[in-house]
C-alpha cells in the first residue's frame, strides 16, 4: 500500500511538472515581458537592469526553476488584459463557478437517482421508456445547444427566468459573495445549473437504473421478498444502498468534468466564473490567466484521480492483493 501511494504520488508529481513546463513554455512564447512593462522612453540600460531584476538574463532552466518557485507561492503573475494579479481575479471568480458546480452536482444527483430508481422499478412503463429516449437525446446534444433551448423556452418565450448573468448577490466575506441567499440569485442560477447538470443527470440515471435492475435480481433481494418485508424497505433499504456505491465513484470522477464543462455553460449564460475568464483569456491571448487555468485544472484532475485510485485500493481487497505481489 505504501509503495503504491509513493508511486502514485511520484506519477502525479511528474504530471504536474510536465503541465508546469507547458505553462512555462507558453510564457516564453508570449513575447518579451520587459516590453510590456516599460514605456517608450525607457532607455536601453534601464531595460537591461529590469531584465536582470526579473532574472530574464539567466539560463532557461534557471528561469523554469524560478517559475516553479513562483507557482508554489501561488504567484501567477499579472493579467495582460486586466492589469491585475491573476490570483486576485481567480479568487474573485471562483465562488461563482463553485456555486454553479455545486448546485449542478446536487441537482444531477437527486434527479438522477430518483428517475433511475423509477425506471428500474417500472421498466415497462411508458414514462420509463420516454425517459430513456429523452436521456439518449440529452447525452447526444452538445451542452450549448441545450442551454440555448432552455433560454428560448424559459427566458424568451415564457419570461420566467433571466437568460444571463449572476444576480441577487449578497456578500458573505470580503472575497465571497453568494447568490444562494436571494430568490433573484436562485432564479439566475437555475438555467445554468440545469444545463451543466443535465449530462451528469442522464449518466447517473442510466447508471442507477442498470445497477438497480442488476441488484433486484440478486439472491438477497429474493430472500427479502420471501421473508415478506415491505416493498419500500426492500427497494430503498436493501436495493438502493447497494446501487449507490458505483454511483458515488462516478460522481467523484465527474466533478472534474463538471468544472471543465462549466466553461461552455458559463459562456452560454455569461456567468462570471473562472471558465468565462479562461475563455476570454484564450480569445485575447492573455497568457498568465491561460497558464494558471491550465495549472488549476491539471491540479484538480490529478488530485481527483489520485484520490479515486487510493480509495479504490483501500476499498477493493482484490486490487490490494494484486499490487502487493
Amino acid at each position, binding site marked *: 500500500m505504501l509503495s503504491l501511494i509513493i508511486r502514485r504520488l511520484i*506519477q502525479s508529481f511528474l*504530471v504536474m511538472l510536465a503541465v508546469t513546463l*507547458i505553462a512555462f513554455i*507558453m510564457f516564453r*512564447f*508570449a513575447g518579451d515581458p520587459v516590453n510590456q512593462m516599460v514605456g517608450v522612453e525607457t532607455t536601453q540600460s534601464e531595460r537591461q537592469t529590469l531584465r536582470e531584476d526579473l532574472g530574464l538574463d539567466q539560463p532557461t532552466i534557471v528561469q523554469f526553476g524560478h517559475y516553479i518557485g513562483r507557482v508554489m507561492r501561488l504567484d501567477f503573475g499579472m493579467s495582460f488584459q486586466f492589469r491585475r494579479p491573476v490570483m486576485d481575479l481567480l479568487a474573485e471568480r471562483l465562488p461563482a463557478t463553485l456555486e454553479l458546480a455545486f448546485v449542478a452536482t446536487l441537482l444531477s444527483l437527486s434527479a438522477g437517482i430518483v428517475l433511475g430508481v423509477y425506471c428500474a422499478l417500472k421498466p415497462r412503463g411508458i414514462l420509463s421508456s420516454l425517459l430513456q429516449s429523452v436521456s*439518449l*437525446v440529452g*447525452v*447526444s*446534444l*452538445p*451542452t*450549448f*445547444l441545450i442551454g*440555448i*433551448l432552455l*433560454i*428560448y423556452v424559459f427566458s*424568451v418565450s415564457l419570461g420566467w427566468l433571466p*437568460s444571463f448573468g449572476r444576480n441577487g448577490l449578497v456578500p458573505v466575506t470580503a472575497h465571497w459573495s453568494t447568490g444562494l441567499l436571494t430568490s433573484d440569485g436562485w432564479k439566475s442560477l437555475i438555467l445554468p445549473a440545469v444545463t451543466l447538470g443535465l449530462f451528469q443527470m442522464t449518466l447517473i440515471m442510466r447508471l442507477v437504473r442498470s445497477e438497480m435492475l442488476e441488484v433486484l435480481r440478486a439472491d438477497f433481494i429474493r430472500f427479502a421478498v420471501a421473508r415478506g418485508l415491505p416493498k419500500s424497505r426492500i427497494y430503498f433499504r436493501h436495493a438502493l444502498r447497494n446501487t449507490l456505491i458505483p454511483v458515488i465513484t462516478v460522481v467523484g470522477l465527474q466533478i*472534474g*468534468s463538471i468544472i*471543465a*464543462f462549466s*466553461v*461552455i455553460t458559463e*459562456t*452560454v449564460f455569461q456567468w462570471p466564473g473562472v471558465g468565462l475568464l479562461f*475563455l476570454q*483569456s*484564450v*480569445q485575447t*491571448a492573455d*497568457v498568465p490567466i*491561460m497558464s494558471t487555468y*491550465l495549472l488549476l*485544472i491539471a491540479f484538480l*484532475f490529478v488530485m481527483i*484521480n489520485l484520490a479515486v485510485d487510493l480509495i479504490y485500493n483501500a476499498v477493493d481487497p482484490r486490487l490490494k492483493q494484486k499490487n502487493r505481489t
Partner: protein
Amino acid sequence: MTPFSDPSKTSKFPRLAALWESDLGYDFRQSRLVMIATVIFFLLILAALLAPWIAPMNPYDPASLDIMNSSLPPAWYQDGFAAFPFGTDDQGRDMLSATLYGLRTSIIISILGVALASVIGITLGVIAGYFGGIIDTIIMRVADVQLSFPAILVALLIDGIVHTIIPSATREDSAAAIIVLAIGASFWVQYARTIRSSTMVEKNKDYVSAARLFALPSTTIMVRHIIPNVMGPVLVILTINFGLAIITEATLSYLGVGLPPMQPSLGTLIRIGQEYLFSGQWWIVAVPSVALGVLVLTINLLGDWLRDVLNPKLR
C-alpha cells in the same frame, strides 16, 4: 468505385446483395430507427458536400446579399418568401444556404480531425505495442494522463496554446488547421489503446515471426503485416469519434475560439444567431441548431448500432 462502368457493375451488385443478406444487413433491416437515421445521415452529408451547387445562393458573396431581404421570417409566415424557405438574417443572407455551407465546413473539419486522430493513434499504438518496453510505457502514460481530462477541455487548451505560440496575424488562415489539430490531438488515445492491445496479440503470431525471419525492417512489418490485421475495431471508434468531433468543432466555434466568421461552421452560426434570439428572430439560431442536433443524433444512433452489431462484447 464507378457504378456506371461495366466491369464494376457485375462485381458491385452481388457484393451489395451479399452485404444486404449478411448479419449486418439483417440487423439493419430489423431496426427501422437505424434505417431512418442512415437515410437522414447520408442526406445531410450529401447536402453538405453539394452545398455550393444546391444552395439557393452563396451566402458569403456580398454581391448576392440584398439588404431589402434582411430579417425575413421563414416561408410559412405571412411575411416570408418562398425564395428564403427558412428566412434570412439581418444582412439578407438566406439561412438555408448559410446552414448548408456551415454544415459543409463542420463536416469537412471533423473528418479531417478524426483522420488526424486515427493516424496519430494508430501509429503510436502500433509502435507502443510492437516495441514494448520504455517506448510503450511513455506513450501509454501520456495516453492515461490525457484520458483523465475531458477531450473538449484538451481541445480548448490546445487551441489556446497554439494561438499563443502562433502570432495573431496568421490566425485567420490557420484557424481551420488549429481546430483540426486540436481534435486530432484530443481524440488519438482511444485508437492508440485499442491498436496497442491487438498489436501485442498479433506480434507473437507465426506470420509476424516469419516476416522477422526474412529480416524485414520493423516499419514494413508494422505497416504491411500488423496494421491490416488490427484495423477491425477502428471502424467503430471512427463512427463514435466522428460524432464527438462534430460536437467538439461546434463547441469550439460556438465559444468563439474556432473558425473566424468569414467561413462560419454550424457552431459559429449558432453563436451569432443567439444574439437575435431576444429580438424574436428565432430562426437565425434555430436553423443551424436543428441541423447540428439532427446530425449529431443520427451519427450517435449509427455509432451505437455499429458498436453493438460489430462487437457484442462491448455491450
